[in-house]
């Protein structure tokens, strides 16, 4: 049990800055998910914590220990790899207990721990199988078992579910949550899948090009995105962002529509005048015959439970805004046709306003 702290972590590969000035603390026993597009440095950050990569500068603490220059084996961590990294020539039991064996833990103790982990993960009958005889989900469990028996102070996960099919991924996600509730070991989890991030995390770290874009609870990140990037990265479909103008606490859309009270409570528009970016999630735009926002429907995607309408804003100078697409989530029965003009209202208190210069949330 330990917290993890990163202090001013920089990592450079051949003059290529991959991580710059990473500062964060993962509280003891929490589940932290690092998320970001590929190449944002999330895996590198994880590998630095594991000790598989040396940091260029800065320090890493696990608990009270400065582990910055320690070997991976001395950091008391366990890692689950994307491709599971099971030893192909060892059976499940040997895979799970290898780490205990090289650390000189007696055979009875190894057996006890392996059986306990196998029971926890539903691997009971598989201990003598070879990795190649296992399915993807079973291999995944063995990789977890190998991490669990070590009883480390931190679990590191490097996109562990990305090689599984969608159904299995959902199932393993729930198992992972259950496991974390039971073991309550500090966990750091890397993924590019924002659904995984939202569902698993107690804390989400959104990384972009090697720096922290936002670090907070899933609610913080989803309901109060700190930047246009976070707003568009988290949530599916991605948040609608339109150019607008702020005026005395109200927001005026490009076609002249005035919206008042749309912005979230934490956004402060007093004293702000001029261009802003308005972000509205697809579910915060409501189909409403009396609504003041008019859009033309372009493409309709029926998803079963609801329908996504890809629309273009309408107005006097519609040609100027053709490049802006607004995605609206409609309830199952509502199915406008392509070319229809529909009216929408923005939900009160759910709009996100960003500064067009800094791309940051207007606070």
């Amino acid at each position, binding site marked *: 049990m330990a917290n993890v702290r990163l202090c001013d972590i920089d990592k450079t590969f051949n003059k290529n800055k991959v991580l710059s000035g990473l500062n964060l603390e993962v509280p003891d026993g929490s589940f932290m998910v690092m998320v970001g597009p590929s190449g944002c440095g999330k895996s590198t950050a994880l590998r630095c914590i594991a000790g598989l990569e040396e940091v260029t500068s800065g320090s890493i603490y696990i608990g009270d220990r400065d582990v910055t220059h320690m*070997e*991976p084996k001395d950091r008391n961590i366990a890692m689950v790899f994307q491709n599971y990294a099971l030893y192909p020539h060892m059976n499940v039991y040997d895979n799970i207990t290898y780490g205990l064996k*090289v650390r000189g833990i007696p055979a009875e103790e190894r057996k006890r721990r392996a059986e306990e982990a196998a029971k926890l993960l539903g691997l009971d009958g598989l201990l003598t199988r070879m990795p190649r005889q296992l399915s993807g989900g079973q291999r995944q469990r063995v990789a977890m078992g190998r991490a669990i028996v070590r009883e480390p102070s931190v679990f590191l996960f490097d996109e562990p579910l990305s090689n599984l099919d969608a159904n299995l991924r959902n199932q393993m996600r729930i198992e992972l949550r259950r496991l974390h509730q039971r073991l309550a070991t500090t966990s750091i989890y890397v993924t590019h899948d924002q659904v995984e991030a939202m569902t698993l995390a107690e804390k989400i770290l959104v990384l972009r090009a090697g720096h922290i874009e936002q670090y907070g609870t899933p609610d913080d990140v989803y309901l109060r995105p700190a930047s246009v990037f976070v707003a568009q990265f988290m949530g599916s479909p991605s948040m609608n962002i339109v150019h607008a103008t702020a005026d005395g606490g109200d927001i005026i859309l490009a076609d002249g529509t005035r919206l008042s009270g749309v912005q979230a409570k934490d956004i402060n528009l007093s004293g702000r005048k001029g261009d802003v970016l308005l972000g509205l999630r697809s579910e915060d735009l409501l189909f409403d015959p009396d609504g003041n926002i008019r859009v033309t429907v372009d493409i309709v995607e029926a998803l079963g439970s609801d329908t996504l309408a890809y629309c273009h804003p309408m107005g006097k100078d519609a040609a100027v805004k053709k490049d802006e697409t607004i995605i609206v989530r409609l309830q199952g029965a509502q199915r406008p046709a392509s070319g229809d003009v529909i009216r929408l209202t923005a939900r009160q208190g759910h709009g996100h306003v960003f500064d067009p210069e800094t791309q940051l949330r207007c606070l």
Partner: protein
Amino acid sequence: MQDERYAFRGKKHLILPILFLLPQLVITVVFFFYPAGEALLGSVYMEDSFGLSREFVGLDNFVVLFSDPGYLETLYLTFIFSIATITLTMGVSLLMAVVADQVHTGGTLYKSMLIIPYAVAPPLAGVLWLFLFNPSVGVLSTFLDGLGYTWNHKLNGNQALLLLIISASWKQISYNFLFFLAGLQAIPRSLIEAAAIDGASPWQRFRNIIFPLLSPTTFFLLVVNTIYTLFETFGIVHAVTQGGPSRATETLIYKVFNDGFIGLDFGGSSAQSVVLMFIVMILTFLQFRYIERKVNY
């Protein structure tokens, strides 16, 4: 349904597949089966030195062979030579491959240089070492002389054997190195990282993870090297020692040549090559039978 998967069904379609196989079959028959058959046949005849007449003698050639203490010495010598060469070759090339696998800057150049010896013909490889160890002017023998050690493989049989082992290994290390390096690079990095996190020391990682995963490569090289030391080292022996001094380095393959083409004892020489053939067959069989079981694919 299964039949439909074969494009060449029935007798009327037999011509085309045979034509496709023919070039390979011709080469195999002419260059492998025919000479092997001739050797088998020759081993049961006694032929005069001019090749004018021959007489069927049954297994007499083999009886003579195995009652000759000289031949048993040759067997023993070949055994020592093979084991030493294989051990030296595989040990050094594995070490080099493991080290080369860690090199990042200039790795390609380093690896390319290590492969060069493979392009050298065996007799030339022998000549090269012959120059280095020339008793009167060789660089290495002069150096050894300076240390107070007299090197003269022309007089000292053990030194001659050592020189052969070194030159035969040197020649074959490149080939082994290439395969070991490819084998090492095929091992996923994450396995070694997982072992490092599990707490394995570099030696334990090598011993428990890398070496077992290399076993298919190691096994293949063991078979290839066995055949190499028994057959292909002829050129090196011929260039370096010609089996001397006083037959101290006369390996099985060199004795086949020596007795057959120099001594003109064709029957005896054929019998020896048949014995050699069986030794290789038995060794290869044993290797597949017993060692392959321990290989992890």
